[in-house]
């Protein structure tokens, strides 16, 4: 569907951008206003930090509000307004707060504010993406003194701090009874973060000013203006013309050219967002798997682990990253990249091996292959439609009969994928936690609404051995033992090739020479990570 228009549009974009880059050396010297101006591709939907957990809202929230812990550019946690914590029993935790944290209105942050915020997190009216999961483990909370809180949990929860630590803290006095308009207007947007919220003009910009009373290192800029520029080429133009000093979501096509432009720096890191192919491996018949004559094929060959491994070997991941993504990816052989807890160093990306794949297919009883249709979105992340096309050709080269490659807009595609309407389809999964646990739980554990596992297990994959190993992970308190357990579980499940990891997306920011930006794995665009270049 819609493939032609998408391709031509992205070409047009690339053409527009390259034309502008061609003349960029002639750009006149820009005059900055004092402070930092950011051109951001996304806009928050609300200022209330607990309204939505999605990235665009977090970008703003992390500048104005604090969390119990601080998350660094590799998603690892450090003490924040909670200076330390300990367990006093399997289900009780003591959290000690800093006593020098003040809100933007001058009031001190105390245990009451924390308890209020954690309590409110699950009761935000009409929230499309609440923090409920982060506070679900809490059974009760009690302030022992203004700077110590005792928590009891419903069950032993080793990663308790990772869960509650990511909730933003509000001032009880200001936030009680505040409506969403009160936050958007700034009245209730009172945090303890490095910047104070000044105004939000929807569709246009957000303005922040420095919090001079910040408890940690003071913010680098007096004022920060975040302009919302959703169009890729327009964002690049704004950077070149000097109307902004920092932009995010630079497309791979523009990266090559911007790196060669005087006065511009590109900042990049490989993100934790994995692009993968999901395989409909649990059902006896799959809607888009056919025999060589185009008739439905039973049993479904994707149920066979050998076939899944063969498909993985047919994908030339290096080729995809080099040719289609201009290098904007890192080939993947598991869910999370290095640096995230639970990463297994010896699980490399499956190497490209057509002969090996053909042998596996023959062993599995499909010497002549079978028919398959590949599905993908075409507007979700850079190159999604093209990657699907390429994999289609690779499968055909390996002897499969590729009946088609269908790409759809994400809003149509996402729902259909969730209803098991596809057989082999490309999806992405971001990870914002310090370990692989959340991702493994949501993508690969058996779907179970009550237990809250398998939320994004769209193909209903089920591996009891892996499920058991994960149960051990979820109840292990010792961090080192827990990480080893995650690695074990990952090794076990990957042997079964439950899905085909393709690559981790690289993310790019570009700035003028006078701005330094810490490229972060959480894909956050925030003044928190920016500072003047020395």
């Amino acid at each position, binding site marked *: 569907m819609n493939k032609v228009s998408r391709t031509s549009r992205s070409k047009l974009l690339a053409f527009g951008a390259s*034309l502008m880059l061609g003349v960029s050396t*002639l750009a006149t010297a820009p005059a900055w206003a004092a402070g930092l101006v950011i051109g951001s591709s996304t806009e928050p939907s609300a200022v209330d930090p607990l309204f939505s957990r999605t990235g665009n809202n977090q970008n703003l929230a992390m500048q104005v509000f604090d969390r119990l812990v601080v998350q660094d550019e590799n998603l690892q946690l450090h003490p924040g307004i909670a200076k330390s914590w300990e367990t006093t029993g399997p289900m009780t935790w003591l959290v000690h707060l800093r006593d020098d944290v003040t809100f933007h209105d001058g009031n001190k942050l105390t245990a009451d504010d924390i308890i209020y915020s954690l309590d409110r997190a699950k009761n935000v009216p009409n*929230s*499309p993406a609440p923090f409920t999961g982060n506070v679900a483990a809490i059974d009760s909370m009690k302030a022992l003194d203004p700077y110590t809180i005792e928590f009891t949990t419903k069950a032993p929860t080793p990663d308790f701090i990772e869960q509650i630590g990511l909730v933003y803290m509000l001032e009880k006095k200001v936030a009680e009874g505040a409506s969403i308009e009160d936050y958007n207007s700034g009245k209730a947007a009172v945090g303890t973060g490095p910047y104070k919220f000044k105004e939000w003009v929807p569709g246009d910009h957000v303005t922040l000013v420095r919090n001079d009373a910040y408890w940690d290192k003071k913010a680098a800029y007096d004022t920060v203006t975040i302009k919302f520029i959703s169009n890729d080429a327009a964002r690049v133009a704004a950077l070149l*013309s000097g109307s902004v000093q920092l932009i995010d979501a630079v497309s791979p096509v523009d990266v090559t050219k911007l790196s060669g432009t005087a006065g511009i720096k590109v900042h990049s890191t490989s993100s934790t967002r994995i692009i993968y192919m999901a395989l409909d491996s649990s059902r006896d018949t799959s809607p888009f798997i056919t025999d060589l004559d185009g008739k439905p094929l039973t049993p479904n060959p994707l149920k066979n682990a050998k076939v899944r491994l063969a498909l993985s070997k047919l994908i030339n991941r290096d080729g995809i990253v080099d040719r289609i993504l201009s290098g904007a990816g890192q080939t993947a052989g598991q869910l999370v990249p290095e640096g995230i807890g639970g990463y297994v160093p010896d699980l490399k990306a499956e190497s490209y091996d057509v002969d090996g794949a053909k042998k596996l297919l023959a062993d599995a009883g499909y010497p002549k292959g079978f028919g398959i249709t590949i599905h993908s979105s075409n507007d979700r992340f850079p190159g999604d439609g093209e990657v699907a096309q390429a994999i289609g050709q690779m499968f055909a080269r390996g002897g499969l009969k590729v009946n088609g490659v269908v790409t759809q807009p994400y809003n149509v595609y996402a729902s259909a*994928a969730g209803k098991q309407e596809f057989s082999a389809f490309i999806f992405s999964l971001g990870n914002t936690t310090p370990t692989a646990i959340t991702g493994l739980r949501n993508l690969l554990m058996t779907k179970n609404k009550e237990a*809250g596992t398998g939320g994004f297990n769209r193909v209903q994959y089920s591996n009891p051995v892996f499920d058991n190993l994960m149960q051990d992970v979820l109840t292990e308190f010792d961090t080192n033992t827990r990480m080893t357990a995650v690695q074990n579980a990952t090794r076990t499940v990957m042997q079964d090739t439950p899905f085909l990891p393709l690559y981790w997306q690289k993310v790019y920011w570009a700035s003028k020479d006078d701005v330094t930006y810490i490229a972060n794995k959480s894909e956050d665009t925030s003044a928190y990570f920016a500072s003047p270049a020395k």
Partner: protein
Amino acid sequence: MTVFIIRRLMQALLVLFVTSLIVFLGVYAIGNPIDILVPDDATEMERQQAIHSLGLDRPLPVQYGTFLLHALHGDLGTSFVFNQPSISLILDRLPATLELAFVALFLAIVIGMPLGIIAGLKPGSRFDEGVMTTSILGFSLPNFWQGMMLIMIFSVWLGWLPSTGRGQMGSFLGIHSSLFTLDGLAHLILPAINLSLFKISLIIRLTRTGVRETMLLDFVKFARARGVPETRIVVVHVLKNILIPIVTVVGMEFGSIIAFAVVTETIFAWPGVGKLLIDAVMRLDRPVVVAYILVVVAMFITINFVVDLIYSLLDPRIRLGGAK
């Protein structure tokens, strides 16, 4: 006249009802917004909570019925994404789009009509050919590409004009607009030109054709024979005769500028309603999509009504009303 207005109102209500039904079902058919709204690391519980709080767990007829009931009380629903009344989201951004549309249309008329009249009076002349050739560019170059070129030349290369946002706003007679500050005007120029180029070409062509046809008619000859000055013939008599098609087209184009300024708004990061709509469609924010389309339909109905009134002023032979 009264009968005419009442009949129009009845029609308008019917159209609005049918539109709401079609759009509501259409957005529902595309997919489930929850798949787009929840973050990647959401737990199943969070997902269920969100589905429930947005009312997506109720049967479709109930959802539509609730919408209709609220709509009759003037509430067109609350945005899934912003948790604000969709109508106020739209009205907050409408002024930015209206401002852009008015300036673009103004440019189209003051540039397009004179050029079209002169070209029509001297067909085949060098001026005529020049204008006509240039206007082909206005038609055929994609709006998107024109916008990029404007940014490239005037912002990146020459550095004269800003390329994004609405700039500073001033206030005059209680109206907030970027028309009232220098910074605001500077921000307005490029997007307004981008939006008006196509309309200028359209008006040039309409005017030129009208002038050429009308200049050959008998009444022009008689006027000349009576010794009416040429300027008066053109400005008063000819112009009055060619205005009807122009008013029709300008009316419709005004509607389409407001409703579909999205390309320009996206390129220039203009905080108008077009962008709101596109984002809403991508995220399946049904209340905003439905409310937006209802507002646009209401706007087209009003514009058509006004155009009909203007007809009757321009040409007394045209009568409004139901009485045959």
